[in-house]
């Protein structure tokens, strides 16, 4: 009597030689996939960016409700930078509050506007599939996400600004720099995650990752140069007065 043995199949057959093993989805992918959100109007966009980032990412990819997102993110970005600008200005006295509140949004919106063409063109050149409207929405979403963190930090920053004496300007400068860095990083983090989520879900590239990183560096440089040119925190400058010079040399000034 002969017994035929069945060949034992491995539970998970390995992929063909040379092909990478598919990584299991990260927990946040699943979380983002379960997010549901439809913007009721521009003012509800902030809630979507906080609570349902996955839904916002899908809307951006499918170009759904982009006008609402553009309006909402633009409003949020301007409002947050206006409020935080006023707080930044309060360090240099009451007179500077208005100047800084007007000039800081100009710096933020201006830097985004200046960097938008390069974002769209280089993304398009590297094979990313996004329209100009999607590019506008993506840049504004980055700004709005950063603005949300600025809004969250605003009460704490305000309290430190009013309760700290003039001789501690270094501390305040450092604190504001940390807050701005945190908020900008969060904005970039949101866009980078959107890119990874879309790549995972649809197997397509909404952005090119390397171009995104390089472009973000460019945006930071442009914002720093814009701040140096317009000077939202310089109490000696008038509302329309600008100053030429490289931002690094302005940082080195005593």
């Amino acid at each position, binding site marked *: 009597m002969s017994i035929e043995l069945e060949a034992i199949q491995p539970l998970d057959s390995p992929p063909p030689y040379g092909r990478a093993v598919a990584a299991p989805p990260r927990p946040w992918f699943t979380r983002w996939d379960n997010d549901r959100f439809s913007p009721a109007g521009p003012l509800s966009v902030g809630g979507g960016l906080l609570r349902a980032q996955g839904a916002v990412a899908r809307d951006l990819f499918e170009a759904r409700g982009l006008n609402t997102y553009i309006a909402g993110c633009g409003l949020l970005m301007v409002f947050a930078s206006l409020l935080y600008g006023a707080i930044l200005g309060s360090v240099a006295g009451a007179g500077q509050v208005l100047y800084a509140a007007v000039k800081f949004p100009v710096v933020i919106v201006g830097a985004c506007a200046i960097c938008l063409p390069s974002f769209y063109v280089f993304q398009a050149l590297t094979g990313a599939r996004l329209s100009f409207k999607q590019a506008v929405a993506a840049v504004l979403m980055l700004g709005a996400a950063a603005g949300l963190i600025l809004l969250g*930090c*605003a*009460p*704490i920053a305000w*309290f430190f600004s009013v309760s*700290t*004496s003039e001789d501690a300007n270094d501390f305040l400068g450092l604190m504001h720099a940390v807050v701005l860095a945190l908020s900008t990083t*969060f904005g970039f983090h949101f866009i980078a995650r959107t890119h990874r989520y879309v790549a995972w879900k649809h197997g397509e590239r909404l952005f090119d990752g390397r171009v995104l990183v390089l472009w973000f560096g460019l945006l930071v440089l442009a914002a720093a140069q814009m701040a140096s040119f317009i000077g939202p925190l310089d109490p000696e400058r008038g509302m329309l007065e600008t100053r030429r010079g490289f931002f690094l040399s302005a940082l080195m000034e005593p």
Partner: protein
Amino acid sequence: MVALLGNLLHKPELHFRMAWRAPAVGRNLYLLTAGVLGAMAWGAAMGSHVGRAHLWITTIKMPLFLLFTLALCFPLMHITLLLGGVKARSAQTLTVALSGLSTLAICLGACAPVVGLFCASAPIPSMASYLNLYVLCLACGVLAGIAGLRVLARGMRSLCGGPVRAPLIAWALIYQFTGAQVAWVLRPWIGSSYGVDGYSLSHGLSGNFYMGVWAVLMRWLKEIGA
């Protein structure tokens, strides 16, 4: 209120689940009342070192300190929670934050009789006794803070069913960072043993806690010849 506090201390998971399902105003008011009473007891204990006007001023100041810090930190705490993946409404975040804060204040209130005893019986004026009381209060504060965080961690874990370390650490850092400056503005707490009769907040809205710590550190390094 007693049942609510019993749940909060004995079965925080149950408390948080009930609070999450129905974050009612009444529940928040009870938590607030318990927190304010605990903080007042702690404030009175600290103020008893100098006594007189300082006693009631510190009694009022302590709950104000905790609540003002919460008010400043709340927007960022709510945003942190949402970004940590916890889909909370602002009322739910408030209930969770008040639960943690009330636990902290209740723990401080529980330590208040002991601290009060030491404060009232310590010699005055004496820099050594002031420093001893300072260390005692700091130790009780750290203990209460850890207890509050533990309750918060258990409660939040039961709500999210996953790791809550990141939002919890963020909450603690945000609250501590801001609270240190609020406490600095509202100083003195234990009270300098010298000339407290003329108590005023004229020093307030000046200076900075972190710059103060930095200055002390530099002075200390200079003293030891580093």
